[in-house]
């Protein structure tokens, strides 16, 4: 008796090699039971160094004020908000993989979802830093919360997109964290049950909440995951929609456009997948997980990149066309002079963005390049640079020339503390990611096991035999019937 479920032979296996359940556990969990490699320590300490530099930059900003940054009269949002939008966008890929692909029943998500969700959480943590420290008087940050206060109570403005952002980002962070951690429970229990030392047993025992693997618990867990996925799907779309509202609801030329929500969401997924590629290409190599994060996975993500990159390109052209077609002189000036004119102060950034986000991903129409790891890694960096510039272009080129030409600002370049703050968030991100890779299973062990017998390489090979035997039998019966 066999419980093999049929999956088309045309689909390539999602788990390579001759694996059984125990082998899966072994492959994914043993790297976190060993002492970290030298490379890990080097990476970790570089990240912590960056984090400390970022902390010092923030310290200066808090002590001496926002003047530590080179923001000026018209450019009130510079690197800080650019970085905020960039980091939030990166987070979106994790939720897309874990939620939307779950609803679409995409088996390949199981290889990458855990790490991508972790990336989401860390990216949102980094993103949150920028609006918080940008407040200047950060000790007043709690003013954004609608709590009964002694000032009236004077409430926050619920009609403001900036407040919507507070709710969107904090909800996004909370829900992503819950989704990620509830998925981690069974795998942490696996680590606990393998633990050799008392300390590991205790720590993973606490972290796994006493998970046993009871059928009833699994049934509820499945229901929970499905509903959380159903909630996260509109949530992730809402988050970047609301971020785009920060711009779109204003009347600044270049921002005041209805195309922003879908355009921002596509861009977010685009940059997020690029970041997932950057991280996972390294992780699979260093931790020896090539059997679980296969070329097929990388290709699937590259397909998403070429799709979303093309949507973004379409949006760029649409807004350019509408700026001209709308015949609003200010809008058209912002596009034709501030952005598309290569010889204007920031024209280069517009064309750099165009090249990185629209032209370069088109390479991925070629299957050969989609499956080339070096090209993918290089492209993932290019896309992330491009998407950073997209936010920079949107923010800076729209506001450096405002309605009053006398206040048109001089060329804006960030101060060392502004750059330091950005580098600091890289430090935060990679410090968290290094710790995650060291102490947590980077691949969802239980989920891989649940797809192993349908999509594992050795099981698919077995299936071919069964299929062949069946079709032979069918053929013989048919022939006999005919005679």
């Amino acid at each position: 008796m066999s419980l093999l479920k049929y999956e088309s032979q045309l689909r390539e296996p999602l788990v390579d090699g001759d694996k059984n359940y125990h082998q899966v556990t072994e492959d994914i969990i043993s790297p976190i039971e060993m002492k970290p490699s030298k490379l890990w320590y080097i990476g970790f300490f570089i990240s912590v160094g960056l984090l400390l530099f970022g902390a010092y930059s923030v310290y200066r900003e808090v002590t001496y004020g926002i003047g530590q940054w080179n923001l000026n009269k018209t450019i009130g949002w510079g690197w800080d908000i650019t970085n905020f939008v960039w980091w939030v966008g990166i987070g979106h890929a994790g939720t897309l993989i874990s939620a939307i692909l779950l609803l679409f029943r995409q088996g390949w998500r199981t290889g990458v979802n855990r790490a991508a969700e972790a990336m989401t959480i860390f990216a949102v943590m980094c993103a949150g830093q920028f609006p918080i420290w940008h407040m200047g008087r950060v000790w007043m940050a709690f003013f954004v919360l609608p709590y009964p206060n002694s000032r009236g109570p004077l409430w926050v403005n619920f009609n403001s997109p900036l407040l919507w952002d507070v709710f969107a980002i904090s909800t996004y962070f909370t829900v992503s964290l819950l989704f990620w951690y509830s998925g981690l429970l069974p795998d942490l229990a696996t680590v606990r049950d393998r633990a050799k030392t008392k300390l590991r047993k205790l720590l993973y025992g606490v972290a796994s909440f006493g998970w046993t693997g009871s059928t009833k618990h699994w049934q509820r867990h499945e229901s929970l995951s499905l509903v959380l996925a159903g909630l996260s799907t509109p949530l992730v779309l809402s988050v970047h929609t609301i971020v785009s509202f920060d711009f779109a609801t204003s009347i600044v030329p270049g921002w005041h456009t209805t195309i922003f929500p879908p355009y921002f969401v596509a861009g977010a997924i685009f940059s997020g997948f690029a970041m997932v590629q950057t991280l996972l290409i390294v992780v699979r190599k260093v931790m020896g997980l090539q059997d679980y994060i296969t070329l097929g996975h990388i290709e699937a993500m590259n397909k998403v990149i070429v799709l979303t990159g093309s949507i973004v390109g379409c949006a760029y052209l649409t807004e350019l066309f509408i700026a001209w077609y709308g015949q609003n002189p200010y809008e058209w000036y912002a596009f034709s002079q501030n952005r598309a004119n290569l010889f204007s102060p920031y024209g280069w950034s517009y064309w750099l963005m165009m090249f990185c986000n629209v032209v370069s991903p088109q390479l991925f129409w070629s299957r050969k390049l989609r499956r080339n790891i070096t090209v993918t890694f290089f492209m993932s960096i290019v896309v992330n640079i491009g998407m950073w510039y997209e936010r920079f272009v949107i923010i800076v080129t729209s506001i450096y020339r405002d309605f009053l030409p006398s206040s048109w600002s001089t060329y804006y370049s960030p101060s060392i503390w502004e750059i330091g703050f950005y580098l600091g968030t890289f430090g935060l991100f990679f410090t968290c990611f290094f710790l995650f890779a060291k102490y947590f299973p980077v691949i969802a062990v239980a989920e891989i096991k649940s797809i192993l017998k349908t999509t594992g390489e050795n099981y698919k090979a077995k299936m071919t035999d069964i299929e062949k035997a069946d079709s032979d039998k069918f053929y013989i019966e048919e022939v006999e019937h005919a005679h």
Partner: protein
Amino acid sequence: MAGGIKKFVVGSFDDEAVLFPAVKNVRKAGYKIHDVYTPFPIHGLDHAMGLRETSLHTAGFIYAITGTTTALSFMSWVFTKDWPLNVGGKPHFALPAWIPITFELTVLFSAVGMVLTFCYLCQLSPFVKKHHFHARATDDLFVMAIECTDKTNDAEVQNFLQKAGAKEINIQVAETGWWIGRYDREQKLYREEKGY
């Protein structure tokens, strides 16, 4: 509280394809399956064991509409009653502008509520002590625990499991009294059996 010290015959299977018919046969023979512990969710096992559907998603829906009403009623109260602000003569009751926050709170309430309910129902929390029938139940074994009553013949159950294809069989005594209340049909069957 139900539970107390109980005796279990524990059989471990290494293939879910063997487990399914075994579950069916064990139930048919009239033994009471306490639980089956698996390393990953096995679709249809809950039905095979006669567990009822979970209604966790209904709880999620209730939390969600709580979030919706909280957000809408609070914002309406603030802006129409407690501190109406005149913003360029725009209406105080600005429903379209409240949709984003209403949506976010709907999702937030539902997600947080559901996870807490999930943890409560499954009694999952840090520092909770549970009996683990087999350490490999989270690795590669499917562990079936059959509850013994006064009338159960242990040797017979062990033989039965052996025939059903279990690789490892043993007898364990465990505390099951950490449940708060009854949680499924299985518990009820047991009580009926005992004649409570």
